[in-house]
């Protein structure tokens, strides 16, 4: 900083040739029009020393409007401009003025000043350094604009935005928690239904089967009974019962895959592959199995159900008997990516998904995945096959409900 001696003049002047304040520190006292213009400008025009104190060489009348201090209370012999600037903002001002000097450019700085009544006002200081022929800074010229109202409005807006963002975040968390609860509750309902199927319907069918077997054996043991005269072939009844038992058993397993109880996502997908092969003669190729991650139960259930739904979609609508499944972490290793791809007939996709009632489960999958903060992308075209990709963030452990919440 320069240590220029304080000037005693209190008015700016112009350089007739350059159209800028001249080197002279004496004001043209007769130029009333200029002063009229200067003092009618919104804000306060100033000139001050470039030193540690920023002593005022001139301060326009607008200064009093900004902070209640008459401009002549700032003079080279008395109170410096630095004194009205808040301590914590001074370094910022110095740094930006220094940069403007180095670049020989303007500066525009927002900072706070202490007003006459002790309140803090915000000003925007647009100024420039003025140099002498030797390239040294003579003083700083600028204009201070009162931006307190704008700053208040910005701060209010920022607070509102923060509040809004916080509310959105809270609602999102609530939605995710609700979705997690719903997924678990839904699976529990399925488990319960499966248990009833197994414990009641299936056991009942075993009993009927044993009774039917005795009936068939009884018929066989009595030669006087002509089996051909019976309206139904006894072995056909046995066969129907076997089918009924098998269907019930399969339904119970589909509703409540035992692998979901304790194993990871990899095991669940491997189990799904074997079930699809065994029960539907449908091939599922696991091209890449999920990384070993600690996945919360409800997310594991969701992903398993989503992949199963997508595979069943392929089987029902794609016209092929094979699908490929990939699972891996995303590029930031913060989320999971699962894709189900087929080489089937594809479909026209313009962003809207077919209604779930039409048999497609895509919309249902997308809605459920979205509740967990994830996305479902569909890449397809008629004759081009389909690739459905689920991207889902791994939730923080505190974001998901614990078991206790269900008790």
């Amino acid at each position, binding site marked *: 900083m320069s240590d220029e001696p304080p000037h005693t003049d209190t008015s700016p002047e112009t350089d007739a040739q350059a159209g800028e304040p001249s080197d002279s520190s004496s004001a043209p006292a007769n130029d009333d029009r200029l002063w009229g213009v200067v003092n009618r400008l919104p804000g306060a025009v100033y000139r001050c020393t470039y030193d540690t104190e920023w002593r005022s060489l001139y301060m326009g009348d607008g200064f009093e409007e900004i902070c209640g201090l008459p401009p002549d209370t700032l003079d080279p012999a008395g109170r410096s401009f630095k004194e009205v600037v808040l301590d914590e903002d001074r370094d910022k001002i110095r740094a930006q003025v220094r940069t403007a000097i180095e670049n020989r450019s303007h500066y525009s700085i927002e900072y706070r000043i202490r007003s006459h009544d002790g309140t803090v006002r915000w000003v925007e200081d647009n100024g420039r350094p003025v140099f002498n022929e030797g390239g040294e800074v003579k003083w700083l010229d600028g204009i201070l604009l009162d931006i307190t109202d704008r700053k208040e409005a910005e701060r209010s807006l920022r607070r509102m935005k923060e509040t809004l963002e916080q509310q959105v975040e809270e609602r999102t968390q609530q939605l995710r928690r609700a979705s997690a609860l719903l997924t678990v509750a839904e699976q529990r309902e399925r488990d319960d239904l499966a248990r009833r199927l197994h414990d009641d319907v299936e056991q009942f069918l*075993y009993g009927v089967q*044993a009774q039917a077997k005795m009936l068939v054996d009884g018929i066989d043991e009595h030669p006087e009974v002509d089996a051909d005269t019976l309206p139904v072939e006894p072995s056909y009844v046995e066969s129907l019962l076997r089918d009924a038992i098998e269907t019930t058993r399969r339904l119970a397993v589909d509703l409540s895959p035992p692998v979901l109880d304790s194993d990871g996502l990899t095991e669940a997908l491997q189990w799904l592959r074997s079930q699809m092969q065994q029960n539907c003669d449908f091939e599922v190729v696991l091209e890449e199995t999920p990384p070993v991650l600690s996945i919360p139960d409800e997310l594991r259930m969701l992903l398993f159900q989503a992949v199963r739904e997508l595979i069943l979609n392929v089987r029902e609508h794609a016209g092929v008997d094979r699908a490929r499944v990939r699972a891996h972490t995303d590029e930031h290793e913060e989320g999971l990516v699962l894709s189900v791809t087929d080489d089937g007939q594809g479909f026209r996709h313009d962003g809207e998904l077919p209604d779930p009632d039409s048999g497609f489960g895509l919309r249902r999958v997308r809605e459920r995945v979205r509740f967990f903060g994830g996305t479902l992308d569909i890449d397809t075209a008629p004759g081009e096959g389909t690739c459905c990709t689920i991207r889902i963030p791994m939730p923080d452990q505190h974001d998901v409900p614990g078991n206790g919440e269900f008790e």
Partner: protein
Amino acid sequence: MPAQILLVEDHDLMRPSMQEYLDREEGLEVVAAVGNAADAREALRQMNGPPDLALIDVALPGQSGIELLQDLRTDHPDLRCLMLSGHAEESYVRAAKEAGAKGYVVKGKPDVYPRAVKAVLDGKTYTSDAVAAMWNRAEEAA
């Protein structure tokens, strides 16, 4: 004298059906058919010595079939126990094997029931096809 069987099966239709089915088989007699572990113990207390075989459903209300099996094997080490289940699940099969069962029959094929019982009475092991590999794995792990 027919081999005496204790049947522990909780389903009200399956239990009498199974009893009747086994009773019809020559050389077999169901001496008690009960629906839970407590009744099974009570039935054993009232017998003059343990039966030749206990046929136990894995899923029983209250104390499970596996737990009953463990208790029976402790109290009557020579009692042959055959497990019966609708679940062809590895964890159940392994638990049954570890607890000392002589076989594991998956429900759904009535022909198999007396065959399995007779095989175990003859000192053999019997497992349904659906769980044979699981039983073998449990055996290898033991």
